[in-house]
């Protein structure tokens, strides 16, 4: 036992040393090279500049586009496993969540009750924050939208996602004492961010996920430290703090048709949910991995702000339009590039 252990550490040490030796003198060079590669590829994919036919309506069914790359069967299987695990697995764990140069730790619990996922998430650092979310999946699933949560699992959803991202397998690593396969979803245009997800080999659960901006800039990292896959007790799904927010399944998947038209959305994004708010409405768009939400609200002239606000990986671009002498505040929120949010906000059109 002790022998095994020392052997292991020796191995770990030497590989670490090798990496350091290799990396430190060459690091600046390597960084420069890495920074160049994605940028060099990006322009081809930028809509409007490339030769690829762009659909300004953005509502073109993805199926009609160029045949999806015949993805590696292993990647396909892994994506299906991931989608299934995210929706149907019971687990609890400790997680680190980094963005904005700050790292926080969280406790997450994912249970299934009456076939619906119930999630509890609680920050263990900083101000006490806790949320319990339950029963929100039913309507999305009933609707059968290919982009709903289990979307990756269906062939159509998978195909759509592969039209927008190129999936690459990037080796293996160990996270939370488990073997994981590293998958990279590389965006095919400049309107979405990339993802690097380490998928648990056994269950398909994402053990680590990075949101990556162009040039390899990591905006956010969510990573398990400890994972427990045993069944979840009811008590674990109860809020642990008095200030916990409970979120009931009030979302609708495509059940409300928005009265606002979108003049343009990035290709591959489809409206997947819409909801009426007290002072306006919101419409959610997704390409299967990334999502943004368009809010159009009557908030009064004091909210006629034009500009963007950023928190971690999330950007909110605010704009306003005037329809029949009424002021409406438009806010586009999402984990998408700033420019894309701005373009979408400008594309909100007068209702018919």
């Amino acid at each position, binding site marked *: 036992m002790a022998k095994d252990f020392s052997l292991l550490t020796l191995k770990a040490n030497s590989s670490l040393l090798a990496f350091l030796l290799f990396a430190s*003198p060459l690091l600046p060079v390597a960084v420069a090279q890495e920074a160049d590669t994605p940028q060099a590829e990006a322009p081809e994919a930028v809509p409007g500049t490339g030769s690829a036919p762009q659909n300004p309506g953005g509502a073109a069914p993805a199926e009609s586009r160029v045949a999806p790359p015949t993805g590696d069967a292993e990647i396909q299987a892994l994506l299906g496993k*991931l989608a299934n695990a*995210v929706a149907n697995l019971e687990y609890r764990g400790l997680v680190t969540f980094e963005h904005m140069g700050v790292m926080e730790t969280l406790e997450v619990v994912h249970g299934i009750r009456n076939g619906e996922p119930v999630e509890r998430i609680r920050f263990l650092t900083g101000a006490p924050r806790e*949320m319990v979310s339950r029963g929100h999946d039913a309507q999305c699933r009933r609707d059968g939208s290919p982009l709903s949560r289990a979307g990756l699992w269906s062939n159509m959803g998978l195909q759509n996602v592969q039209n927008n991202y190129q999936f690459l397998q990037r080796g293996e690593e160990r996270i939370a004492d488990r073997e994981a396969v590293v998958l990279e979803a590389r965006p095919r245009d400049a309107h979405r961010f990339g993802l690097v997800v380490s998928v648990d080999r056994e269950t398909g659960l994402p053990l680590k996920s990075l949101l990556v901006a162009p040039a390899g800039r990591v905006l956010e990292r*969510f990573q398990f430290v400890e994972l427990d896959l045993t069944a979840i007790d009811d008590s674990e799904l109860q809020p642990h703090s008095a200030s916990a927010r409970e979120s009931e399944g009030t979302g609708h998947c495509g059940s409300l048709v928005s009265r606002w038209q979108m003049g343009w959305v990035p290709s591959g994004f489809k409206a997947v949910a819409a909801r009426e708010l007290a002072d306006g409405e919101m419409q*959610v768009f997704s390409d299967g*991995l990334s999502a943004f939400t368009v809010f159009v609200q009557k908030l009064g002239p004091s909210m006629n702000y034009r500009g963007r*606000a*950023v928190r971690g990986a999330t950007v*909110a671009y605010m704009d306003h339009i005037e329809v029949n002498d009424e002021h409406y505040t438009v806010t586009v929120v999402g984990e998408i590039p700033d420019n894309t949010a701005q373009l979408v906000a400008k594309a909100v059109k007068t209702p018919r």
Partner: protein
Amino acid sequence: MSHGNHQQRLDESLSALMDGEASELEVQRLLKESDASGGDLGQRWSRYQLAASVMRGEKVAPVNLGLAASISAAIADELPLTASAEPQAANDASAIHSRWWRPLSRGAVAATVAFAAVLGVQQMQAPQMGGDELVAEIERPAQQPVQSVPQPSGFLVPTLNTRSVSTNPQLVPEQRIGGMGVSPQVQVVPSPELMRHLNRVMMEHSEQAARVGSQGMVPFARATYGERPPE
């Protein structure tokens, strides 16, 4: 051109040193450069340290190199005063006065340091205490997240973007053309009303995104992150 490369390398070495990951070579390079460039590198180093301390929420007394220099200068200036008092031994009262005066003036210098330090702390701490986001304006090195495993090639060195420190969204209004002398990233301190709106839409978005995406619980983490205790 080569200067830019050199500068970039130095920057990288400096942040590596911040993270305690600088190689022997890089340390040598930094030491060499700090000799050559005078105070510039040293000042940046101490600013980085200061920013890091502030981000960790430590109460810090910034080491103001300029202040240290001016204290040295002040003490140097003082010597002729006591020296000139010695020869005028005829005037005993003056000698006594100078003997009393000397420690007193040293104390006065020390008090000045303490005051400046406290003032410095308040200036650094106040924005954070107020829950505002001005802290982000402090020059901050790009922070390297701790790497447990060598990253697979292709997305090397994922530097965590440090766009903001507080849980509040950061505001950047659209630039008006013709605005002069304005830096391209003007930070606006938003009205509480605007802040509430931004927090609300970000939370609503994240919750909805959790329902349609395949990202597991990440969107829930985002939704809960900026949550405010009820006021």
